[in-house]
């Protein structure tokens, strides 16, 4: 686990989002620049939006192809990162809808958190990630999107609303609902472990 943590730090792009403010950008986007600056962001956003580890390389490549096609559509009304997150949302949604993405094709499922043999205090990072994924999977798409964008990607709420194409108030409502849902799931997990 220690090694993987070190890797995650080591591979973090040096240019990681200094959230480029829309008003500061006037020149056309260059694909190479977008790729170099945001590749890691797009990769992890896709993972957090539900793309399986085994598929994320494929989906990330496909998403960058879409980005390449849509460069001219970027109008500077939001940050590049927010714009990319919106594209990632759609890519992840398409991924989940694809016929070949079925649970039976994923191989062994991670163990259910509720029947875990691991004590909570021994949760390793990998297992924690599996549990979190299970919880996030129970959120609907809209709530998951706002939860991932705000809580994990640390995107400002007004930009989250832009990426989701909804009013800020709606984004806040979804965030609160997602939080309640996730917190309740964690409480249930804790309660089950307490009775073990």
């Amino acid at each position, binding site marked *: 686990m220690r*090694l*993987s943590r070190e*890797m*995650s*730090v*080591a*591979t*973090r*792009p*040096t*240019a990681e989002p200094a959230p480029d403010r829309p008003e500061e950008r006037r020149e056309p986007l260059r*694909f*190479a620049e977008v*790729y*170099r*600056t945001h*590749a*890691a962001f797009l*990769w*992890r956003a896709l993972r957090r939006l539900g793309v399986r*580890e085994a598929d*994320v*390389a*494929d989906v990330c*490549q*496909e*998403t*960058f*192809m*879409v980005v*390449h*096609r849509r460069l*001219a*559509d970027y109008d500077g009304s939001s940050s590049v990162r927010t714009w990319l997150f919106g*594209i990632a949302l*759609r*890519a992840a949604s*398409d991924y989940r809808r*694809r*016929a*070949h993405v079925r649970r039976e094709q994923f191989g062994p499922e991670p163990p259910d958190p509720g029947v875990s043999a691991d004590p*909570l205090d021994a949760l390793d*990072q*990998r297992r*924690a*990630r599996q*549990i*979190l994924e299970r*919880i996030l999977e129970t959120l609907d798409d809209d709530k998951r999107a706002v939860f991932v964008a*705000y*809580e*994990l990607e*640390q995107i400002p709420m007004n930009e989250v609303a832009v990426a989701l194409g909804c009013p*800020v*108030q709606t984004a*806040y409502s979804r965030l609160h609902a997602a939080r309640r849902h996730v*917190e309740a799931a*964690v409480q249930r*997990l*804790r309660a089950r472990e307490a009775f073990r």
Partner: protein
Amino acid sequence: MTRPTTPPRLLDERSGSDELLRTLLRSTELDEPSAADLAQLSASLEPLLPPGDGLAPAAPSAPPAQGVAALLTNGKVVTSAVVALVAAGTVGAWRYAGSSSDAAPTPSVVAAAASAREAPSSAPVIEAAPTAPAVAVEPPAAPTSDVRARAPRQPAPSTSRATSRSATPADEAALLAEAQAMLAAGNGRRALEIAREYRRAHTRGLYREEFERIQIEALFQTGAKEQARARARSFLQRHPRSAHRARIETLLSKMGDAP
């Protein structure tokens, strides 16, 4: 209406969130791509990236394979590590089954194109077969008179690269960038020429929708508004889920046409 106060993020201890929840959220550190993952991604996108541009996003100096191996648990094999160890440009057999207008071209096409670029330059140039689907659903070609007068009957010199079957997505992308630049510079006539050149040479091109959009905008820019309107309506009818829908609808509304 008062704007809601931005709540502290759950990862922030000051949010008062459950410690277990914060542990779970911190585990998303694992979502970062490894150096091997990024190398694989760069290789798979190579046709779209200019060579020698130092494009690999921030790779660590440590050997990637060892680190990736540490990410393997429960006997599960992370395919990206294996692929990255093989070499760049060997990604194959990828398929994209999406049906939306945002659907990306199949990555296998990209990989194949990368291979094609390595083919000897003396390879014979084969004219693209005149398959028609993409063109057949177009409204009747109706170039503006001014453009017709100026547009060359024969393909422009740059077409030689595009008419070859070995043309890569990078070739197509270059044409797209050129057309877009012409449009942005207000040279709608040249953008139209490039768009027509593309459609002649790439009946199954990756960027057909993009060139249709450029053609519509270029027609509008050159004053051929009726033709732009007709093409725009046709486009929206044929591509209701296109990523360019909003843009074309905006253009239509500029022409006083409710989408």
